């Protein structure tokens, strides 16, 4: 199927080069940030492009660790990500299993509404008011409960359960297992790839969340990393920024401190990226096969 005309060859070469450049473009900015975080400010100013700093220093990281602000929001982020992922997975998996049973009375109503939420929602303000009525403002629960189930994930997992062979479940039922035991002891062990995929998806979602902290947390002491990060990176812009942060006052940081903060926000994602990459494409495609 290869045509070996000259034009075709030229196109191939250009294509390979372009793809390589584009691929690097996706990664280079981050590489630059990482290396700049180890440079002293003088070096950032004097040498424009560098990938290996001349006088590598961890001063920026020392500053960050010693300031009270960042370790605290790092802890908050880790805590919320962990708790949120566990809760989301528990709720999503068990709901998906129940609605995967076509004979369940009321399933049509539940799934009809779930699908409807994909095209229509109450919107930002009514959701905010509900969270407020529940007294969740300034509680970490507000970062988790309002986004506890992702509808796309739910539908994909439900479709996965529907494709599982039922023989094992039927056999267990003859042995006197109830649905709960079947779900925990038989279905879950069969679903490990799905569990891995969506655990990662939820974890990334919680780690990256900015919106919920912005609208539900007024107390800056409870801020997770993402929102704190923005504050630190934007700080030297002073007047331009809207939300002022007096309680969590950070000493005006140098370029490399900002860079180091960005590294903190990104590192966990890059650490799990190889696992993500193994699973996510499957996850996306499972969903698009049958909605």
């Amino acid at each position, binding site marked *: 199927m290869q*045509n070996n005309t000259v034009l*075709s060859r030229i196109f*191939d070469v250009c*294509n390979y080069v372009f*793809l*390589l450049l*584009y691929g690097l473009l*996706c*990664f280079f900015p981050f590489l630059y940030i990482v290396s700049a975080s180890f440079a002293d*400010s003088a070096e*950032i*100013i004097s040498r*424009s*492009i560098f990938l290996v700093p001349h006088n590598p220093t961890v001063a920026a990281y020392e500053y960050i660790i010693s300031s009270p602000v960042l370790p605290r929001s790092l802890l908050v982020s880790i805590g919320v990500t962990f708790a949120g992922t566990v809760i989301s997975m*528990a*709720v*999503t998996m*068990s709901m998906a299993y129940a609605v995967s*049973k076509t*004979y*369940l009375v009321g399933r049509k109503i*539940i799934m009809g509404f779930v699908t409807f*939420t994909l095209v*229509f929602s*109450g*919107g*930002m*303000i*009514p*959701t*905010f*008011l*509900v969270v407020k009525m*529940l007294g969740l403002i300034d509680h970490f629960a507000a970062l988790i*409960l*309002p986004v*506890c*189930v992702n509808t796309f994930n739910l539908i994909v997992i439900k479709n996965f359960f529907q494709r599982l062979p039922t023989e094992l479940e*039927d056999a267990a039922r003859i042995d006197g297992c109830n*649905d*709960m035991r079947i779900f925990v002891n038989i279905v879950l062990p069969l679903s490990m790839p799905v569990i891995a995929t969506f655990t990662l998806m939820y974890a990334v979602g919680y*780690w*990256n969340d*900015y*919106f919920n902290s*912005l609208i539900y947390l007024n107390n800056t002491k409870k801020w997770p990393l993402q929102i704190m*990060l*923005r504050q630190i*990176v*934007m700080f030297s812009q002073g007047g*331009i920024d*809207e939300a002022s942060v007096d309680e969590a006052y950070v000493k005006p940081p140098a370029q490399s401190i*900002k*860079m180091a903060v*960005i590294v903190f926000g990104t590192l966990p994602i890059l650490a799990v990226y190889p696992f993500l*990459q193994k699973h996510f*494409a499957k996850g*996306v*495609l499972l969903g*698009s096969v049958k909605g």
Partner: protein
Amino acid sequence: MKNRLAGSTHAANRLTVWQRIVRDRWLYVLVLPGVLYYFIFKLMPMFGIIIAFQKYNPYLGFLNSPWVGFKNFNDFFNNPDFMRLLVNTLWISFLSIVFYFPAPIILALLLNEVRVSWYKRSVQTLVYIPHFLSWVIAYSIFYMLLTTDGGLVNLLIEKFGGEKIAFLSDKSWFRPLVIIQSIWKETGWGTIIFLAALASVDVEQYEAAVVDGAGRLRQLWHITLPAIKSTIIILLILRMGSVLNTGFEQIYLMSNSINRSVSQVFDTYVYQVGITQGSFSFATAVNLFKSIIGIILVYSTNFIAKKAGEATIF
């Protein structure tokens, strides 16, 4: 025990509804937390939309606040903000459909031409990365690269004898930057769905085309593009539905007091008026207007696609 087995083989007709519910009680235990979630955080806010027709008072609540009919909507349409928001939002959507929407399609087609599989996989590995970074991180990286205060891009411009450009505060740079950022962050990820559609094309079709003397362009036109046409149309229908949704986080992060006149869109306006200024009813009305236009657009694009004999989502 016999009945329980019958349930899973769809022969449950002889049981009454109540017997079936009792039989499946453990499934209801499993579904309960999820149903509670959808009830509290999805259904209740939908009822909460009624405050768009009220003068909402937090002390009186959803049910007792005074009704004002369409006053909030009238106020909004007669507000000078309205035209500005509409223009800003439509501008960003227009640019995004023209430049950002085709980007993953083009990248997927280029990747599809790569025959060396490890090369293709490596490029894919690189281009998916930005999708997993938050908008805050994406914005921060752009900020560090573009700031006039020692940003890499401005250092380069100066090195080559140019003038510093205030990318982040200059109004005219706001829209291009939003589009560039979206392209950088989501293009790679967007290729997945097209690459999957392309992977399902039968290789024999290409072989037959070569035998018939078709060059690569003709193969692209007659085999590759038709294979992803329905995917493109479905995504376009969905995209049309969100013409007024520009996404909140990216725009909010990029906006500041200097570029407000071009950066304020419906989503950030709802936040500003509703959450920060407390005009809950007014903001809900703005949001409802936006949602209804979105639904109308999805259904009409879908209708047109159906008339044209194309793939549809409904």
